[in-house]
């Protein structure tokens, strides 16, 4: 299981002797807060890049003018306000919540391989979107949102109920139940797609995970879910630290293990359901981000959770921006770029930091 506080933090804090915790702890906390601030700066840079870069070259001043609504060129104003701003905002929101949900999921299942997609969330959302297209004839991604959210929530509830049995869920039963429900739903999806060519034609573009042609109007109604999910998640840091030591130790420390799992489950449903309905099933973000966060701050979930928010946003916004630039004049979907960036990153992390993986 987890070793207590290995010295994974770079800098002076890691080398401080355990006998003098006071100043060392303060310094370590300061380093972590500074790191968080630095990450927020990177988020801003990524947002800037996403607004300024694209297949149509627009001057810095022209972008700013368009943002403030004083652009001389109507096309430029349209490109910035109607195309780039929505995908940037949705990338920020979806990336941040997927990152947070990934960290939560790993803490919940004590499995470094866990990804929010494993809880059945993505498969549930995908099936709901397939039904929306095939049965209800919904044509635009913005129309999928509530279907996806409902499907994600329903699937996660089923996974949770099955995994609980009589004695509440264990990390293993959650993981297995998630994989099983995902398999069932994926099979049903394929069955529908094999019989319905029109649905496949639409669905395949949604399913790779893309930020294009998303409606900014879908963000505000989802915002309450996201905020509640994020607050619940951030409150769980200490409990997840206890859980990492095993159920019995956590109980011995006076924690209510079942309650922690239930709250974490709700937070994951809220975060993933919203993110998936906004951007499609982006599986990889949560997994990569929680590993990067763990690499930076060590095993303390309070900090892993905090760090995974900006990291997720950075990954998704950057992936979307890169996808616009590398395949000009066409675009590569953000979900594909996330895998292209994320897979090597994860491999490097796994190879480098062996102690992190339990």
């Amino acid at each position, binding site marked *: 299981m987890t070793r207590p506080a290995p010295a994974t933090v770079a800098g002076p804090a890691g080398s401080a002797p355990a006998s003098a915790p006071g100043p060392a702890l303060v310094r370590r906390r300061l380093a972590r807060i500074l790191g968080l601030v630095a990450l927020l700066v990177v988020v801003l840079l990524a947002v800037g890049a996403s607004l300024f870069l694209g297949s149509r070259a627009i001057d810095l001043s022209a972008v700013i003018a368009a943002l403030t609504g004083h652009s001389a060129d109507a096309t430029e104003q349209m490109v910035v306000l109607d195309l780039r701003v929505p995908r940037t905002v949705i990338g920020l929101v979806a990336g941040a919540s997927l990152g947070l949900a990934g960290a939560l999921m790993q803490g919940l299942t004590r499995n470094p*391989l866990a*990804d929010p997609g494993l809880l059945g969330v993505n498969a549930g959302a995908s099936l709901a979107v397939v039904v929306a297209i095939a049965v209800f004839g919904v044509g635009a991604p913005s129309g999928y949102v509530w279907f996806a959210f409902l499907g994600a929530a329903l699937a996660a509830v089923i996974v949770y109920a099955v995994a609980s*049995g009589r*004695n509440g869920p*264990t990390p293993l039963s959650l993981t297995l139940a998630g994989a099983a*429900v995902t398999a069932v739903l994926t099979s049903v999806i394929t069955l529908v797609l094999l019989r319905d060519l029109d649905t496949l034609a639409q669905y395949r573009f949604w399913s790779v995970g893309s930020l294009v042609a998303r409606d900014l109007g879908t963000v505000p109604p989802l915002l309450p879910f996201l905020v509640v999910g994020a607050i619940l998640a951030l409150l769980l840091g200490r409990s997840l630290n206890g859980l990492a030591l095993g159920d019995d130790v956590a109980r011995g420390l006076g924690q209510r293990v079942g309650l922690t799992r239930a709250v974490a489950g709700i937070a994951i449903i809220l975060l993933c359901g919203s993110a998936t309905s906004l951007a499609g099933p982006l599986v990889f973000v949560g997994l990569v981000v929680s590993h990067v966060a763990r690499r930076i701050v060590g095993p303390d979930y309070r900090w892993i959770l905090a760090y995974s928010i900006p990291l997720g946003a950075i990954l998704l916004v950057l992936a979307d921006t890169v996808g616009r630039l590398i395949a000009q004049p066409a675009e590569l979907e953000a*979900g594909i770029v996330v895998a292209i960036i*994320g897979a090597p990153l994860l491999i490097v992390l796994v190879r480098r930091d*062996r102690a992190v993986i339990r």
Partner: protein
Amino acid sequence: MTSTLDSDIRMLGAVRSATRRRVLVVTGILVAVLVVLAILALMLGNRIVAPGDVLAAAFGQGPGGDRFVVQGLRLPRLTLALLIGACFGLVGAVFQSLLRNPLASPDIIGISQGASGAAVGAILLLGWSGISVSFAAFGGAVIVAAAITLLAGGFGPVGSSGRSGAVGSRFVLIGIALAFLAQAIIGYLLTRADVRDAQSALVWLVGSIGTVQPAELVVTAVGALVLSVALAVLAPRLRMLQLGDEAATGLGVRVTRTRLLLTLVGVGFAAVATAAAGPVAFVAFVSAPIARRLLGGTGPALVTSALVGAVVVTGADIVAQHAFPGLQVPVGIVTGIIGAPVLLLLLARGNRTKGAA
């Protein structure tokens, strides 16, 4: 003192013989189920052959129509179902006990996705079909497996603590990363292709044994046989590895080499089965846990897993052919829809018994 030791030994003996009896009973039941399923598979279809005539037809006796249907069409399909079922069952058993992670199955660690990526590329970009797609899939599986092995940097004990669980996690995580990479490539190919081609690629992606070619059957059978012999040789060492690296070393097992060999065998099974039928969903994942639960133990349960895999695929293929009249469903869809709930059921029951114990 001696009397308690005696009773301990006697109890150990009793437990052992009970375990052995359970293995025999479970194996017998699984074989019986398999025989029933095989007869059903040979009987059913547009031309229904009576149970009594099936065996005769299979050996070339009886009316010509029966002979053609049973020998020419159903027997090859049944054989392939049995073979790939057993292969997938063994893959899951080997990987899950070797890497000590219930998620270690070829569908999760990228071997299936590597095979699928290569096959989909061959179908959509090169316009291949038939057995050449199988070779592409085999190549894809082997490339991904080699990449995981190289990137995971060998199989030795990790760091000073030498926890072998870490090796497993590293291996699986790198596999997952490659799986997502392959998945992204598949998604890219599917979005760029003509939607009709995408649909035929989808059939391959879900795993199907609808068309069986004799050459394919022979290649699969030979591959499975060779790998089974290798696995039989390695099996005792796999059991020792489960005791932990230090204990296994103490028992004279060369841990690093054994792990590498076992991985190669597991990958071989996955590649052979996936090349023949596509990544039939969930069989590898589900067979070993079911086998372990049936046996009530924690060992690798290789033979039982293979039998469970064969039962799952054979049964699922019967359902796939006959459950929806007028529609041939790929077997992978049925294994996904049926196999997963079976696992869930076992899980729910397992939770209960654990509570009682």
